[in-house]
């Protein structure tokens, strides 16, 4: 199916989904749905570098945090520009700030993409293992920086107080939900476009055999950097609305280990070779965790995710998609 049709179908489904939730009239569903959408975006982003290229990113929380803290930073500026900008440019600043959330999302994406570029440039020439460790390092270094940066609240945290309602839509959470729906569509469409493009072929060769890829003329370093930037940027974009969603942003919740585990588990459990895998994994595991949080505890939900990760990686390495294809004997897509 051609891409415009794919996008159209997603828009239709998304609209129906939104209207359906609105019909139920329970705001909780939007809050829960937001987290699931967040996971879909994060896992899809992770999979572009992890599943398509074979490079593991343990620092998803770091990129997510870049997005969240870009928001906090821009919001804090927007709250009192007179304290920050000199009088000469104050009128301009007051006209621009506070920035609308979609603009913040774009800026956050750019910031996260740049960090991805920098990290990648330092480490992607080495073995994949070192890249993985460097991403872990990145998340912790970022957390240390944020904890020590009082402008965005440091370890005390920062409050972001959005308006209660938005014109036309109503409750603010629904506005954020719609933004997340749009970002989900962007993420899924991007992943699918890459998969079907020559870029996707290049990514697959890197995953299969980097040495042979180079011998075939594939510029592996450049492609890996592209993947890292796209992946990082999407994660940053997913993180940008987060402070507006929870209101109180402190490093512990943003750098939560759950992000690292989930963004790895969801694609690996769903299936890494296609855009559909992270979607399936995110919907299933995300919903399960919401249920667990409400019924038992979120820690138990995370435990289940961890156990499933280990189980699938050992017993069903191609994930749910792989099992599906195995049972129904489908040939791999040409």
């Amino acid at each position: 199916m051609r891409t415009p049709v794919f996008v159209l179908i997603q828009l239709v489904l998304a609209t129906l989904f939104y209207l359906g939730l609105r019909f139920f009239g329970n705001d909780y569903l939007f809050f829960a749905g937001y987290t699931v959408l967040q996971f879909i975006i994060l896992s899809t982003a992770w999979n572009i570098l992890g599943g398509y290229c074979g490079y593991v990113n343990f620092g998803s929380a770091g990129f997510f945090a870049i997005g969240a803290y870009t928001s906090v930073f821009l919001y804090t500026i927007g709250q009192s520009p007179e304290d920050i900008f000199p009088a000469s440019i104050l009128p301009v600043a007051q006209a621009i700030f506070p920035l609308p959330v979609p603009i913040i999302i774009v800026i956050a994406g750019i910031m996260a993409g740049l960090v991805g570029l920098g990290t990648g440039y330092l480490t992607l020439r080495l073995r994949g293992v070192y890249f993985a460790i460097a991403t872990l390092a990145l998340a912790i270094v970022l957390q240390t920086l944020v904890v020590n940066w009082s402008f965005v609240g440091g370890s005390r945290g920062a409050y972001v107080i959005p308006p209660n309602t938005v014109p036309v839509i109503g409750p603010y959470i629904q506005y954020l939900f719609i933004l997340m729906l749009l970002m989900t569509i962007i993420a899924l469409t991007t992943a699918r476009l890459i998969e079907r493009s020559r870029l996707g072929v290049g990514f697959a060769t890197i995953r299969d055999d980097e040495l042979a890829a180079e011998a075939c003329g594939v510029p592996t370093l450049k492609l890996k950097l592209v993947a890292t930037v796209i992946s990082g940027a999407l994660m940053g974009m997913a993180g940008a609305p987060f402070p507006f969603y929870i209101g109180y942003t402190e490093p512990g919740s943003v750098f939560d280990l759950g992000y690292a585990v989930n963004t790895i588990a969801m694609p690996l459990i769903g299936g890494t070779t296609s855009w559909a895998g992270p979607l399936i994994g995110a919907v299933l595991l995300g919903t399960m965790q919401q249920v667990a949080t409400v019924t038992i505890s979120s820690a138990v939900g995370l435990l289940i995710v961890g156990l499933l990760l280990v189980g699938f990686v050992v017993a069903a390495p191609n994930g749910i998609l792989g099992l599906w294809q195995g049972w129904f004997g489908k040939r791999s897509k040409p």
Partner: protein
Amino acid sequence: MDFSLLLNAIIAGLLLGGFYAAVTVGISISFGMLDVVNIAHPAFIILGSYIAYIVNANFGVDPIVVSIVALPAFYLLGAGIYQIFYVSFEKRGQDSLRGLAFFFGLLFVTEVVLVLVFGVDYRSVDASYIGASLRLGPLEFPYRMLVPCVTSLIMFAGLQIFLGRTFIGRAVMAVSQDPLALRLMAVDPTRIKRIAFGISIATASLAGACLIIIQPVIPSVGRDYIGRIFAICVLGGLGSLPGTLIAALLLGVIESITSTFYGPSWAPAVSFGILLLTLAVRPSGLLGR
């Protein structure tokens, strides 16, 4: 600059570094020699800490003694995990993605289980020597750091002798360099790797006991050590035990000085900063092959 403050920071750093060597030696074996990226290693160390804690809290046994008694259990755990890893990944020739995800999953599950069982209160151990210090002139050696450091160095030296002098030890060093030659000597490389991995996890038992003597622990402490472990491993040079020791001491001193003069909240950044720097400038490390 307060000279005695600096001196004591250096000493504390050296003592800490000795302990870091024990923490890292397991990875030097599993990653440096066997090429198995066991990022779950810190989880086993914390497991060792909690086991030392339970027995110490309930029966008053010295934590290091507990860890020595627990060594065989940890060894078997390591051997078992390697077997699963081998069958699931190495044998199938799977990409490293899933191997890494496997260990990450283990790290995570272990931490969450410990949180569910023990909660997030800090736990520490009681031993007669904790709290006292050995004083030599202006120099102060707190026992809670001296004892783990000395224990770590003994274990480190023991491993060095084992690897250099015994048949199995040399087979372990050989298996990373030339598995074919090993097979020609009628030694099964997989068995050797299993033994080596078992040993690497066994070191976690002892390292865990040392850890909980030095500082109180909660389950997430393990993750603080991932950075240190890999920083030391890479800085020292993969597969080189002497390199690991030098790098560990170096990191310990740098961390201690940073902590003393700039505050402890910068400590994690130090090890990761060193790691990133080493990877960018000299990936083979100080004494790497």
